[in-house]
């Protein structure tokens, strides 16, 4: 059962890659992540939750993934709790689901979920108080055996790891449209630049969305900028490199995954390299993480962030489902309507919890099940009292999304909604937003928290450096790096002021949180 589009964005059908998941053989393509390859092969159930062993699918398309954790490789190279959404597929990749017994589909420990009404917050603190003699001898061993996700390898790691140092005038963290524009501006101003991105393919959301910049397709704009940067001789482009922290004196910690995309590192190559990058200035162009919406059983397989749905369609040509409902409370989620239609996905419903979604958005969609849900009503029924206890773990595993949809549709007043997937895009606590708060164009996204730490030159949010997505603004007019520091504010303070990676939201005063 393949769910792959004929014309796929950044995967290469000419280079099929074989891999196994829980011992079954599948085929992906060069350019896939493990998650996209699983989706294209119709695999939805990929793991079990930590405590109740609830079935878990793939929620996102990036490093924020909370659900799709797998065990990668075997023997001494076995690595637990790896996010399937960040694993670059290679030929012969071996992955297993974890935290289940005897099998992923039939997991006895999911009986735990029957007791979920008992296992409320603070259960452990209140229950395992006495006798004190049991703390270390009985309670801890029992709880430790029951809890936990993957297993670490028992043998010593056979691979080598390196430490390395780098120095630059401007460190750009993230190679999305903002980061590329910032790097371009910096290098044109004569600076030595290091451009890091955790993905193996630079471009950020340009690789996941159908966006245009100055009338040019986003991916080709990115390619042109990358070519200019490479030709300048002053830019070090570091893909597969996550900047994970800011430390004293403008030092940034970064992890380069040198050989994680290979079955095993060649003899001369380390698996990973830990960089200390000392930068005079840094631009934090880390992008944004889409906010999920709280509703009953929203953790189950088949429920995916709307932006991730678009990403899997556009970049990987992988269809998360054939028939889908979209639940959103902001304009950004509506983008999925067009992408889904393009990919031939049938939209069973578009549910917008705002009292009156913009008419032009509704107009593009003539779905019979479109419904508007009063925000206050939704908040009462779903957001606050979300996640009703499950009835049967086995049934949940079989038709997970249906139950969620039921609770959604009840809230929306829809009686029947025949579909297998929900695509959700939300901003939290919509009902609690003050009425005066403007509805921004791209709500529903949170900035990832900047890597914190004391620094004499903290990284700047590149609000002034991010013109890339604005139509009709030539890339050449990107502000020079000299202007960036003027925008400097404390990273943590900035992290609280919502907004998104795109320029469109930067001026709005989103009163949401991270």
């Amino acid at each position: 059962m393949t769910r792959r589009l004929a014309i796929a964005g950044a995967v290469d059908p000419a280079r099929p890659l074989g891999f196994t998941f829980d011992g079954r053989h599948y085929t992906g393509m060069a350019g896939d992540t493990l998650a996209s390859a699983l989706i294209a092969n119709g695999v939805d159930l990929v793991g079990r939750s930590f405590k109740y062993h609830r079935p878990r699918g793939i929620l996102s398309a990036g490093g924020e993934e909370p659900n799709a954790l797998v065990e990668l490789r075997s023997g001494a190279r076995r690595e637990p709790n790896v996010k399937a959404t960040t694993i670059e597929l290679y030929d012969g990749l071996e992955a297993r689901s974890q935290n289940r017994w005897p099998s992923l589909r039939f997991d006895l420990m999911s009986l735990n979920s029957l007791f979920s009404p008992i296992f409320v917050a603070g259960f452990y603190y209140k229950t395992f108080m006495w006798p004190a003699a049991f703390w270390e001898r009985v309670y801890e061993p029992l709880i430790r055996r029951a809890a936990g996700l993957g297993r670490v390898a028992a043998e010593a790691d056979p691979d080598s790891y390196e430490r390395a140092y780098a120095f630059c005038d401007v460190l750009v963290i993230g190679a999305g449209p903002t980061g590329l524009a910032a790097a371009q501006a910096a290098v044109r101003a004569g600076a030595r630049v290091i451009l890091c991105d955790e993905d193996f393919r630079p471009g950020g959301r340009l690789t996941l969305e159908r966006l245009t910049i100055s009338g040019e397709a986003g991916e080709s704009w990115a390619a042109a900028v990358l070519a200019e940067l490479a030709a300048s001789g002053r830019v070090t482009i570091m893909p597969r490199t996550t900047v994970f922290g800011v430390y004293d004196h403008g030092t940034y910690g970064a992890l380069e995954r040198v050989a994680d995309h290979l079955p095993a590192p060649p003899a001369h190559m380390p698996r990973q390299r830990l960089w200390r990058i000392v930068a005079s200035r840094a631009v934090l162009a880390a992008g944004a993480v889409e906010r999920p919406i709280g509703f009953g059983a929203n953790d189950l397989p088949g429920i995916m962030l709307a932006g991730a749905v678009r990403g899997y369609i556009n970049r990987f040509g992988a269809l998360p489902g054939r028939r889908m409902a979209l639940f959103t409370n902001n304009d950004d989620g509506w983008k999925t309507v067009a992408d889904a239609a393009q990919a031939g996905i049938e939209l069973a419903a578009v549910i917008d919890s705002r009292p009156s979604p913009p008419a032009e958005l509704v107009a593009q969609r003539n779905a019979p099940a479109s419904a508007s849900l009063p925000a206050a009503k939704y908040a009462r029924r779903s957001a606050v009292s979300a996640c009703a206890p499950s009835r049967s773990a086995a049934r949940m595993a079989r038709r997970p999304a249906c139950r969620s949809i039921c609770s959604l549709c009840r809230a929306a007043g829809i009686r029947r909604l025949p579909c297998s997937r929900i695509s959700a895009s939300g901003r939290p606590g919509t009902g609690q937003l003050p009425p005066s708060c403007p509805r921004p164009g791209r709500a529903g996204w949170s900035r990832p928290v900047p890597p914190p730490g004391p620094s004499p030159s903290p990284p700047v949010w590149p609000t002034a450096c991010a013109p890339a997505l604005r139509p009709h603004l030539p890339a050449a007019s990107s502000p020079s790096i000299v202007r960036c520091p003027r925008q400097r504010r404390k990273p943590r303070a900035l992290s609280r002021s919502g907004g998104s990676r795109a320029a469109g939201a930067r001026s709005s005063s989103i009163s949401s949180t991270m």
Partner: protein
Amino acid sequence: MTASDIELAHREGYRSVEHLKRYTTLGMATDQGRTANVAGLAIMAALTGKSIQETGTTTFRPPYSPVAIAAFAGHHRGRDFRPTRLTPSHRWSVEQGARFVEAGLWLRPQWYARPGEADGNAIINREIRTVRSAVGLCDVSTLGKIDIQGADAAAFLDRVYCNRITTLPVGRARYGLMLREDGIVMDDGTVARLADDHFILSTTSANADRIVQHLEFCLQVLWPELDVQVTGVTEQWAQLSVAGPRARNTLQRVVDPASDISNAAVPFLGVLPVTVCGGVPGRLFRISFSGELAYELAVPARYGTALAEAIMAAGSEFGIAPYGLEALLVLRLEKGFVSSDEIDGTTTARDLGLGKMMSRQKDFIGRVLAERPALLDPDRPSVVSLRTADPLAPLRVGSHLLPLGVPATAAADLGHVTSAAFSPTLGGWIGLGLVKGGARRAGEHLIACDPIRNGAVEVEISLEPFYDPEEVRLRG
């Protein structure tokens, strides 16, 4: 983790986002609060009636995403966890069949096996006999070497050593003892005076870096007004010890003829700048850790292997053989010299039998606190030489020393054995021990009790070294 859990936390008063996090584990999952945490915090904002900004987020800390510990460790794993230090003559030692032992970061030759030799004890005994009867060569490059220069160098050393250094003439060396501020012995070694304002200190191998730190502390914090420069030069010099009755004969063939190294020119504790092997600058110290006629010859580190080869060639006629750390320690034990086994951070100069070294004419670090009543107690354990009544009964380090004929109880404990070895020279087991009131127990017999290994052996206490107590050989 459900929305109702947040409601419960709210009802129970866990309303601050930090309390909420700890009570419910919201935001602690593998995504570290990137997804559901956002909605959860908004629910708490709704429940408390605050805005989302007021509610805030929990503190985020690096790393942003998981980083394998292996990446932080890098190459620092297994044997590469710490650097391995090799002496300048290491290659030569390997060629001579050395078996190495780790001493701190250093690899030091434990003994040198000749082809066909397998029994370590036999090799050690052979090496000792060679030193006592002919001449031996030992790599002592690991000993700490500190270069002290400046107008106030002698005055400075007077303050850090408990014995007097200002009276040391140029061209002579002196055994020196440094105390800690609390009066306990910190380190021992030699001080050689190369010029009025130029000294070379030697320290024990283990303390080389610590003593440099200590001297720097003294100069930068205690007496910044002194004109003194301290430089650790341990790795800049290869130092080889040539010990045995034929040591001088051997060295006369290595040191260039222009330098007179006769007993008159370089007496015991004499120091002489020399050139060796046709012009290589070196320093000759007549110091001995073995009790024999002995010299230490230092040359720039890059000549370490060449010098070892030259000395071996020069001494071949006299039956020279290299000797390792084990033989070195037995040799010093026979002579009753203390080492780090006795200078263990609890012993004073008096405990070590070196009380007379503490000058009464000057101030020095540790002088005041060394006079505390408890440290003057004559019943404190002090160092004595031990030899077993039955020469072939093994004496074990760590054995407790008890009076004869009393039950082995902690109350009867008089002290313990700090070093022990079989002495081929004396044909029996000998050792050093710390014994309560040791100074008045000469000739007394005790039991060295080793209950863990079921051993009990009678030992005799001696206050004199067993080997060459008149120091005839040393000064010959």
